[in-house]
């Protein structure tokens, strides 16, 4: 049986964030509301922020989509929704293929555990089995270039060493859909080269890349399509060659 081709499809995707203030998290406030006969039910006094409204997009294998937009325009929210963490309030997201969210490299890193343990942990979270992690261990360990330090707790690492470890562990999983919040550049000059090449390889192998960035030159370099987000409203998916027109609009 052949797996269906890699694709992402968002239809009328709307995402709203209820903002639970620090106060709203207190039980007292909620109880007080009940006792004074305040309105219970859906509103519940929580303010809602619409992070994405009515977004439509279709991506096929080979699409490298750049997301542009100001801070708070909904880029990261969209990435998180595509990763499956956020549920749409309306509409739908359908993703065919294995998703690798590279949103936060430090996800699941435990500072008191050793480098090896962290690689294992990160691999498991990314969906590898214990056995798969072990077979890749040598390759990942070699890539970090940390050698004997891998047996030491991560908290003894310098920031750059931590970044190397996190990057190597996070990028060890092949995926069909790669989600990135800013192009990842970590470590010293030498490692950045390595990381860059590895990332490119990953992007090549992945069917679809969605990359959010403020760096237009970078987007021109890696993407073939672009979408601009403005206050949660997305432009249509456009060819990257029309980036200037899109930004001027």
């Amino acid at each position: 049986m052949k797996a269906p081709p890699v694709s992402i499809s968002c239809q009328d995707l709307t995402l709203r964030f209820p903002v639970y203030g620090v106060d709203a998290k207190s039980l007292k406030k909620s109880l007080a509301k009940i006792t004074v006969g305040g309105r219970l039910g859906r509103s519940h006094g929580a303010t809602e922020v619409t992070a994405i409204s009515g977004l439509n997009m279709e991506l096929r294998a080979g699409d490298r989509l750049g997301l542009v937009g100001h801070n708070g325009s909904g880029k990261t929210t969209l990435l998180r929704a595509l990763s499956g963490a956020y549920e749409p309030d309306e509409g739908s997201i359908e993703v065919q293929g294995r998703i690798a969210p590279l949103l936060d490299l430090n996800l699941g890193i435990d500072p008191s555990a050793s480098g090896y343990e962290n690689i294992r942990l990160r691999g498991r979270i990314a969906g590898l089995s214990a056995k798969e992690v072990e077979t890749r261990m040598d390759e990942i360990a070699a890539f970090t270039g940390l050698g004997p330090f891998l047996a030491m707790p991560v908290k003894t690492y310098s920031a750059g060493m931590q970044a190397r470890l996190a990057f190597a562990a996070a990028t060890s999983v092949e995926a069909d859909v790669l989600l990135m919040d800013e192009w990842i550049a970590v470590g010293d000059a030498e490692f950045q080269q390595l990381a860059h090449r590895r990332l490119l390889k990953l992007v090549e192998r992945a069917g679809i890349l969605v990359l959010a960035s403020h760096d237009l030159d970078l987007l021109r370099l890696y993407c073939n399509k672009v979408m601009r987000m403005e206050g949660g409203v997305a432009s249509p998916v456009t060819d990257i060659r029309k980036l200037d027109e899109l930004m001027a609009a």
Partner: protein
Amino acid sequence: MEAATHMLRTGRRGPLFEYQMAFRDLRASIGRADLAWSLAWHDVSSRYRGSILGPFWITLSMGLMVVGIGVVYANLFGIALKDFLPLVALGIVFFGSISGTVTEGCETFVQAAGMLSQTSLPMFTFVWRTVFRNVINLAHHLVIVVGVLIYYGYWRHSNVPVAALGLVFLVLNASWISMLVAIASARFRDIPQVVISVMQFAMFVTPVFWPANRLGAHHFVLDFNPFYHLLEAVRAPLMGGTVAPHTYLFLASMALVGWLLTFSLFANTRRRIVHYL
């Protein structure tokens, strides 16, 4: 790997759909039970990293508590140590397991905030992580239980299969309570304090370190104490006693009603939990 290669997320489509999605989350978590297990092991081993005894510190500290309370209370109550110490040892170990599962439940989703907000891992995975972690701890404590039962000769009358059945009920019930407080704690940050107080209160009103028969004519009040039933179902058979049929009835209905309640709450809040954090 079917589930990992296709993802569909949609807006609300009526209550039935929400239950279906909640059930899908549960099923996915069972498919990846080994992940929850690894995370739980990681929690236990990282807590005792660098210590010589490792996780057996849990055993040692609990052993000390058992001996301390056992000796002092045996004298206070004027009961022979032989009768009293095993009661206390089993009581503390198994109640500690219930209490641990429930109170650590408060942290289940709060601690997993990072992973929940950027991966599609099932939410149930983190519930199992808490439950499995406490099962692992309990396994370490069993050393005390076995030691005491052998030392005082109870092992000859111990009915292990019946106790194991009781343990199943214990875990089944402790886990729904754990999940219930996990959801509630994510939404309301006062809940952990409430849970800790309630569990402390429960420890004193449940015959953990006092014999149930001391209540005399007031013994019936224990029938309304769920923790008493949970404890008795495991402790009594190990000490050569029998479990009243109504205890099983109580525990089975508690598990059923509790899980239905918790699952409904989960089905209705599942979308929101990640935003609570």
